[in-house]
C-alpha cells in the first residue's frame, strides 16, 4: 500500500462516519478482498461499483460483521457513532457487534421478496429493531413509531399495512418496509446492497428517492452498492470502483464517469453507455470488456485487471501503486486510481 501523510489521515478520520483501512477478507487459502481502504463522511453518499464477483457485497458484509462462516477479515473498520469506544469493529465480539447493527449502522439487502420473515406481521418486524435497541420506551410507543416510519416510506394506509404479513405486499412495498427497518433507529451509516436490482423499473426510481430522502433527513452516511452506473450517477456524490477484491479507482462521480483513468472503469462506462438509447441508435453494438471475471481467488498477481486489459504491459505484473488525482477532503484514497497506463489525462 502507499504511504500516506499522517496529517491527511487525521483530518479524514475526524469527519468520517465510517473508515475502513486495509480491509482484507479471505477463506483459508483464498484471498477475496485486498487492502480495501475508504472513508465515508457524515451525510456523504458513496457508491461502490463493479461486476458481480468483484467483492462489493463482501465489503459490505465485512463492515457489518456478517461474513459467512469460514471467512476471516483483517484490517481496521471504525464507525464514529455509537461504536464501543471507537474501536476496530473487526476485533469486537459478537455481543457488542450486535449492539451496533441495526442501531449505529444498518443494511438494506438486494432481495426484498425473501428479506422479511413470512410468519411475522410487518409492523412487528419494524418495531422489533426499536425494542431491541431500546430506542422506543414501550411496545405501544414503538407501534406508533412504526406507523410514522411506514408513512415516511410512502406506504399507503400504514396503520393497516403494519398488521399485514409480507406475502400480502408487493416487492416494492416490501423493500420500503426493509428500508423503514434500516432507518428506524436513525443510523449513522446505511449500507444498501443493490436495493433496487430486483424491483420493476417503474418502482426503482421511487424507492431510490426514498432511500436518498431517508438518508438526507438523518444526515447519515451511505454506502451504496450497485452495478448500475446510472443509479450511482443519480444517487451518489462519490464512487469507488472495485475489481478483483481491490478498489481500482475512486473519486467524485462526475469526474470519474466523464474522465475515467483506470482501464477497468473505462470499460465499465463504455459498456454502460450512459448517453442512453438516443445516442446509441444506428451505432454498432455496445462495447464490452473482453473476457469474464475470474472465479474467486484466481485473479492475477500485480494489477488484477491485466488479464482482460488491452493496454497491459510487463509493468502491470507488479501491483500498481495508488495515484492520487487531486486533493479531496476525505483523503487521498477518495480520489485516485491504481493503474500504470491510465486513460485520459494520465501518462502512459
Amino acid at each position, binding site marked *: 500500500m502507499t504511504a500516506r501523510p499522517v496529517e491527511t489521515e487525521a483530518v479524514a478520520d475526524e469527519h468520517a462516519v465510517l473508515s475502513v483501512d486495509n480491509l482484507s477478507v479471505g477463506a483459508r487459502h483464498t484471498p477475496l478482498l485486498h487492502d480495501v481502504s475508504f472513508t465515508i463522511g457524515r451525510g456523504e453518499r458513496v457508491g461502490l461499483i463493479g461486476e458481480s464477483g468483484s467483492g462489493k457485497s463482501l465489503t459490505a458484509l465485512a463492515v*457489518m460483521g*456478517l461474513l459467512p*462462516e*469460514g471467512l476471516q477479515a483483517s484490517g481496521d473498520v471504525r464507525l464514529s457513532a455509537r461504536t464501543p469506544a471507537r474501536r476496530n469493529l473487526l476485533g469486537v465480539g*459478537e*455481543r457488542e457487534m*450486535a*449492539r*451496533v*447493527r*441495526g*442501531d449505529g449502522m*444498518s*443494511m438494506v*439487502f438486494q*432481495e426484498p421478496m*425473501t*428479506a*422479511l*420473515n*413470512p*410468519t*411475522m406481521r410487518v409492523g412487528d418486524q419494524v418495531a*422489533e*429493531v426499536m425494542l*431491541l*435497541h431500546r430506542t422506543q420506551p414501550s411496545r405501544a410507543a414503538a407501534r406508533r413509531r412504526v406507523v410514522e416510519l411506514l408513512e415516511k416510506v410512502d406506504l399507503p394506509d400504514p396503520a393497516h399495512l403494519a398488521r399485514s*404479513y409480507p*406475502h*400480502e405486499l408487493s416487492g416494492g412495498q416490501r423493500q420500503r418496509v*426493509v428500508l423503514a*427497518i*434500516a432507518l428506524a433507529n436513525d443510523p449513522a451509516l446505511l449500507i444498501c446492497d443493490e436495493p433496487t436490482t430486483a424491483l420493476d423499473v417503474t418502482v426503482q426510481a421511487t424507492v431510490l428517492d426514498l432511500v436518498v430522502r431517508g438518508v438526507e433527513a438523518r444526515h447519515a452516511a451511505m454506502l451504496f452498492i450497485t452495478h448500475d452506473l446510472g443509479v450511482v450517477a443519480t444517487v451518489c456524490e462519490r464512487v469507488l470502483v472495485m475489481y478483483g477484491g481491490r478498489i481500482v479507482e475512486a473519486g467524485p462521480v462526475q469526474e470519474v464517469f466523464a474522465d475515467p483513468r483506470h482501464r477497468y472503469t473505462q470499460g465499465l462506462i463504455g459498456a454502460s453507455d450512459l448517453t442512453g438509447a438516443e445516442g446509441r441508435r444506428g451505432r454498432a453494438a455496445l462495447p464490452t470488456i473482453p473476457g469474464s471475471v475470474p472465479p474467486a481467488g484466481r485473479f492475477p498477481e500485480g494489477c488484477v485487471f491485466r488479464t482482460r486489459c488491452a493496454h497491459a504491459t510487463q509493468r502491470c505484473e507488479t501491483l500498481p501503486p495508488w495515484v492520487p488525482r487531486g486533493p479531496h477532503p476525505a483523503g487521498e484514497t477518495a480520489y485516485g486510481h491504481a493503474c500504470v497506463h491510465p486513460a485520459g489525462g494520465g501518462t502512459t
Partner: protein
Amino acid sequence: MLLRFLHRLMVLVASVAAASVVVFAFMRVLPGDPARVALGINASEQAVAQLREQFGLDRPVLVQYLDWVGGLLTLDPGIEFVSKAAIGPQIADRLQVTLWLVVCAMVLALVLALPVGIWMAVRHRHWDGVVLSALSQVGVAVPAFLAGIVLISVFAVRLGWVPSGGWVVPAEDPVGFLQRLALPVVSLSLVQAAVLARYVRSAVLDVLREDFLRTARAKGLRPVQALVRHGLRNAAVPVVTVLGLQLATLLIGAVVIERVFVIPGLGSLLLDSVAKRELLTVQAVVMVLVVAVLFINFVVDVLYLVIDPRLRTAPR
C-alpha cells in the same frame, strides 16, 4: 382462516365416512361367513344360523352397514360373537393404555429431538454436530423392539431396577405404573427421537440459509436470538408434518412394543381378536385406529394454518 378451518373439518368428516365404508366392505369381502368363521368348522349348521340371525348377518349389506355406523356414532360397536362381551368398554380400556404409551413416547421424543436437532444444525460444521448427526443416523436404523429387548436385559434383568413388563392402572399403583411405563416409552421414543432430530436438523439448516435470518442479524439480533425469534417458527412446518406421521406410526406400531413388554394395549386386542376371529372387534379396532390417524392429519393441517399465514389466505 375460519373458512379454511371449516374446509379442513369437512375433509375430516368426509374421510372418516369414506374410511368407514372401506373398513366395513373390506371385512365383508373376506371369504367365509363371519358367523361360521367365529364359531369354527365344528359348529353345527343350526348354531351358525342362529348366530347369523342373532347378529342380523342375514340382512341386506346396506342395512348392516347403517346399523354398524349407527352403533359407532353412539359409541356402541356391539358385542362379541362368542363371549358376548361388549366391545366398546374393551376398546376404551385398551386405548387408554396405548395412549399413555404413545403420548409419553412422543413427548419424550420431542423433548429430546428439538434441542438435539437444533444443536446439530447450528454446529453442523463442528465436530460435536457431526458426532451427534452420526449418532442419530445410527438411532434411525435401530428398530424399537430391539431397543426394548436391550433395555429389558440391562435395566430389568441385570440391574433389576424395573419389572420387565406387565401393566397396572395408574390410579391404583402410581409408582408401579411409572416403573412399567418407563422402558417401553424409552424404547419407543429413542428411535422416534433419532428420526425427528434429523428432520429438525435439516429444517433448521434450511432456515439458517434464509435471507430473512440475515435481515434479523442485521437488525442486531445475535445468531441464537435470530434463530429463536425468526427461524424456529418457519422451521416448524416440515417438523409438524413428520410429527404427525410419527404419531400415526407410533399408534399403529406400538403393537410390537406391547408384545415385547406384555402390555394390554389396543394392538394386543387387535391381534387377539384376529386370532379369535372376532370380526366385529377387529372391525371396531381398525376403525378406531383409522379415525385416530385421520384426526392426527386434521390437527397437522390446522397447525399449518396456525404456523404459516401464507397458507391462510391463499385461495384454493
